[in-house]
C-alpha cells in the first residue's frame, strides 16, 4: 500500500499558522513525523484559509524538500496552484487532482506529462458527485480515454472513486468498494486506485474506528494507495494486518514490528 500522509493541510490550525508566519519548522516536523509513522509520500494542501496559494504551495514544496526526498502530492482544485508547486519540485510529484471534466483534463494531463508527475483522477465532474457505480465507471472511462489519447502512462494514473461520508451516503459505500475492483478491469495495464480515507468518517463520532474498518475493506478490494493520517497507529496496525491477511507479507508473531522494520 502506497501511503500518502494527509496532515500538511492548511485546514489544520498548526499548518495554517505555519503558512501565515512562514514557520518552516512546523511543516518540516509534521513531514518527518508522518514519514516516521509510515508515509511513503506527503499530501500538501494550502487549505481554504490560504490567501495566496500561488505563493504558499511552492513554499511548502521547498521547505519540505529540505528534509525529505519522498514524493509530494500537490493538492489543489486550481491547476495554477499545482503548477507553481511543480515548478519548484525536485522530489517526485503526484498531481491531486483532476476531475473528469474536459477543461481540467486538458490542462492537468499535459502538466503531468511536462513535469513527469503522477496524476490522481477523481470520478466527479461539473455535473456533481456520482450517485452509483455506473456513474463512477463512466467518469473513470472519460479520464482513461483522455489520458490514453494524450499518451499519459496508465501506470502513473490513480483513480479515486470519491469516498462519501458514511452519515451522508451510507448506501453508496458498497458501490465504492466494488468499483475499486472494477476500475482495474477497464484498461490494460490497469490504472492504480486511491482514496481520500478520512472522508468516510467526516462528521461522524467514532472517526478512527470507521476509518480503519473501511480501509481494511478497501484493501481487500485491491486498493493501491490511500491519503490518510499515518500517525493514527491503530489505523496503520489495521492496514498492516489487512495486508498480512491478504498474504502480502509473511506472518510472524511480531508482524507489526516486522513491517515497520522494512
Amino acid at each position, binding site marked *: 500500500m502506497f501511503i500518502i500522509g494527509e496532515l500538511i493541510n492548511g485546514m489544520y490550525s498548526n499548518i495554517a499558522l505555519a503558512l501565515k508566519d512562514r514557520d518552516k519548522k512546523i511543516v518540516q516536523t509534521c513531514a518527518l513525523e508522518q514519514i516516521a509513522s509510515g508515509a511513503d509520500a506527503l499530501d500538501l494542501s494550502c487549505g481554504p484559509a490560504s490567501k495566496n496559494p500561488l505563493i504558499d504551495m511552492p513554499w511548502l514544496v521547498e521547505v519540505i524538500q529540505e528534509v525529505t526526498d519522498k514524493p509530494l502530492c500537490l493538492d489543489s482544485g486550481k491547476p495554477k496552484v499545482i503548477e507553481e508547486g511543480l515548478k519548484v519540485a525536485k522530489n517526485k510529484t503526484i498531481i491531486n487532482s483532476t476531475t473528469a471534466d474536459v477543461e481540467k483534463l486538458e490542462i492537468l494531463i499535459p502538466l503531468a506529462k511536462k513535469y513527469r508527475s503522477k496524476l490522481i483522477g477523481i470520478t466527479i465532474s461539473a455535473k456533481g458527485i456520482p450517485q452509483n457505480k455506473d456513474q463512477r465507471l463512466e467518469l473513470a472511462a472519460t479520464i482513461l480515454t483522455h489520458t490514453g489519447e494524450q499518451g499519459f502512462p496508465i501506470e502513473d494514473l490513480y483513480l479515486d472513486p470519491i469516498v462519501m461520508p458514511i452519515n451522508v451516503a451510507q448506501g453508496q459505500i458498497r458501490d465504492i468498494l466494488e468499483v475499486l475492483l472494477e476500475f482495474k478491469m477497464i484498461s490494460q495495464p490497469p490504472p492504480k486506485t486511491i482514496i481520500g480515507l478520512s472522508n468516510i468518517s467526516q462528521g461522524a463520532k467514532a472517526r478512527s474506528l470507521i476509518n480503519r474498518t473501511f480501509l481494511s475493506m478497501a484493501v481487500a478490494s485491491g486498493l493501491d494507495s490511500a491519503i490518510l493520517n499515518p500517525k493514527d497507529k491503530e489505523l496503520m496496525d489495521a492496514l498492516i494486518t489487512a495486508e498480512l491477511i491478504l498474504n502480502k*507479507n*509473511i506472518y*510472524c508473531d*511480531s508482524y507489526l*514490528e516486522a513491517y515497520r*522494520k*522494512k
Partner: protein
Amino acid sequence: METQLVLEKWQGVISTVIIGAKKEEGGSRSDTVKIGGQITMPLLFKEGATPNKPRIAFEISDIAPFDFDEELIATYGKAVNDPFAWADICVNEYKAGLLCLKMQGTHPDFGNKSPESAAKFISALLSKVKVPLIIIGSGDDAKDNLIMPACSEAARGERCLIGCAVQDNYKTLVASVLADGHSIIAESPIDINIAKQLNILISDMGLSLERIVINPTIGALGYGLEYAYSIMERARLAALSGDKTLASPFICFVAQEAWKTKEAKASSQQGIIWETLTATSLIQSGADLLVMRHPKAGQNVSNYIEALFKG
C-alpha cells in the same frame, strides 16, 4: 527467434555475512568466507548478481562422533578420535575452506565437558587451524548456555559463526555473539513464521540482521527436502521483495540428515550420492552454506558449484 527471458527486478538484497577475521581485522584466520549478497533467486545469473558462491563447511566434532556412519568413520580413520588431526585432514587433504565444529563433548550425556575445558579446546583449535570456524553447541539448551559464552569468548575477534539460537533459547547466545564480534545461526523447525520471528527477536537485542544466518532445518532427499526447499524459496521471495527480516543467507546441515537415511546406510556409495544430491538440491533452493561430512560428496558438490558458476 531467440527466446525472450522473463527477468524480475527485485528491490531487496540478501545480507552479506563474512565468516572469519584476518590479522588486520583483529582475528588470526588465513582467509575469510563471504556468503549471501544475492539480488536474485538462486542461480538466475542473467537476472541479477550472485556475488558469492555457495560454500562447503566440513563438519568435525570435539569428541569421536557417535552418529557417524561406518563409511565416514573409515574415511577419516583414527583422526575422528583426535579433533586436531581431523581438522588438519579436512583443511590440508580435502581443502576445506571452512570448518563446522560441533561441541558434542559438552553434552551431559556425551562427556559433559566444562565451559573452561571447552574454551581451552577452542583456543587450541584456533591456534592450530587457520580457516574460519563455525561453532555449534551440543543441543542441550541448559548446557549450551554455559558452554557457548565460554567458546564465544575464547574465539573473540575471530568473527565465527555461532549456533544455534532457537526461539525458546536465544538470549544468552545473542549476548555472547554481540559481545565477541561473531555472527549467529538462527534455527527454526522448517517454519518460515518462526524463522522470521526469531530474526526479529535477535535483532531486537541489538544484533543487526546482517549478522544472522538462517538454519531453516532441512530433511534429506526423500525425507522432506521439499518442505525445506519451499520454505527457503518463500523466504527468499519475501526477502527479495523487500522483507529485511528474512534477508539472511541459509546454512543447511546436509550431512547429518543425508547419512541418517536408510539409503545412505545401505551402501557407502549410496551414502555419498545421498549427501551429494541433498546438497545440490539445496543449492538450487538458495543454500549459501552447506555443512558436509564425506570428502567425496564434498568434492562432487564443489565441482557442481564450479560448473554452475562458470556461466
